[in-house]
């Protein structure tokens, strides 16, 4: 049995303490200031593309910020369905778990509302097309087609990255204070969600047959590989957007360089930050030590050559 230093009741207490409202962060009529970067450079990696001038690098930062928000809207779609399923399982049983899971679902819906509001303001302020991944329900369908434990491991993975994204924004003094505030408030609640993920996974591991835990790791790695495919699609979309903004087609070698560097940047932001995160790896080790090794071995797959 995995012992964790927190309970559902602790999570509820913290969740009430850190709770925020969308209107407090982004008033309904807010306008986005695109005169400065939105994302920290460690996330966007726009400045390494030296064939872009300063104005174009700034636009790429903005394109990435829009895609960043959309990716979270995207993944939160399946997370909401998943947490409601877990909440249903606790009905008539553990009321602390039920309440924690319902708060979790509500907070994810709120995050989607916040990100949607940001994206709407972005589209109003940005000059030109800016395409993003658009089949959230389809992707949710594919993820939820896997057994629950692998899905929950994926959720833990995705929530852990938000912590590093916030840390990145504090270290980068050039990034927009508004965006830093969004990353902070997102992380504050996601930090509670990671605890719920771990409590749920610990419970699942307690009741499940060992082969279910082992299958979960393989399912998780399959889902992460699909996520990588989506990130690659987003890189292509960003490339189209930035070329439209620049008003020119990049040369073949510039396109090649763009795709390699930007795909690596997305992989760092959404895959590597978790599979190298000590909290994630330690927890995986508790679930199944061989599983933790499988996760660590993935690093070479998602590392730039």
């Amino acid at each position, binding site marked *: 049995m995995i012992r964790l230093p927190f309970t559902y009741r602790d999570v509820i207490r913290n969740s009430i303490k850190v709770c925020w409202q969308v209107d407090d962060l982004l008033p309904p009529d807010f306008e986005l200031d695109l005169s400065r970067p939105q994302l920290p450079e460690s996330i966007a990696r726009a400045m390494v593309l030296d064939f872009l001038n300063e104005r174009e690098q700034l636009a790429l930062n903005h394109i990435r910020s829009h895609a960043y928000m959309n990716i979270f809207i995207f993944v939160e779609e399946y997370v909401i369905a998943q947490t409601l399923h877990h909440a249903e*399982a606790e009905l*008539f049983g553990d009321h602390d778990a039920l309440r924690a899971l319902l708060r979790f679902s509500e907070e994810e819906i709120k995050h989607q509302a916040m990100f949607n509001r940001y994206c709407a303001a972005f589209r109003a302020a940005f000059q030109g097309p800016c395409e993003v991944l658009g089949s959230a329900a389809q992707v949710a369908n594919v993820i939820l087609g896997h057994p629950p434990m692998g899905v929950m491991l994926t959720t833990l993975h995705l929530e852990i990255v938000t912590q590093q994204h916030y840390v990145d924004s504090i270290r980068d003094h050039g990034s927009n204070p508004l965006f830093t505030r969004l990353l902070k408030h997102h992380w504050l609640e996601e930090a509670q969600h990671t605890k719920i993920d771990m409590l749920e996974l610990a419970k699942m591991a307690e009741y499940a047959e060992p082969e279910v835990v082992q299958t979960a790791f393989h399912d998780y790695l399959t889902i992460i590989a699909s996520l990588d495919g989506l990130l690659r699609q987003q890189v292509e979309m960003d490339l189209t957007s930035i070329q439209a903004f620049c008003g020119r087609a990049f040369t073949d070698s510039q396109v090649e360089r763009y795709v390699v560097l930007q795909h690596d940047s997305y992989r760092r932001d959404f895959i590597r930050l978790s599979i190298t995160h000590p909290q994630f790896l330690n927890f995986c080790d508790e679930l199944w030590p061989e599983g933790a090794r499988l996760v660590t071995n993935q690093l070479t797959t998602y590392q730039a050559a």
Partner: protein
Amino acid sequence: MRDALGPAGLKLINVLGREEADRLSRRILRELGLMALLTPDDRYRFGEHLIKESAPVLRVLGRCIMAQAIIHGAKTPPSQ
């Protein structure tokens, strides 16, 4: 009896009270040919049986027990 039902036992007692939960679970276990709910698959079958009961609350309870069993690794038929 609660121990024989795993996490489904707490739900039954919370909804029906100890005595009625005991009576109902003994009957369903007998009908399923089980002594106890030892695995998530057993709990899934128990929940499936419960949703055939006439009382609406038992049908909801059955659904919750099935949902929990799936989360704990029950192998569901392809139609589920």
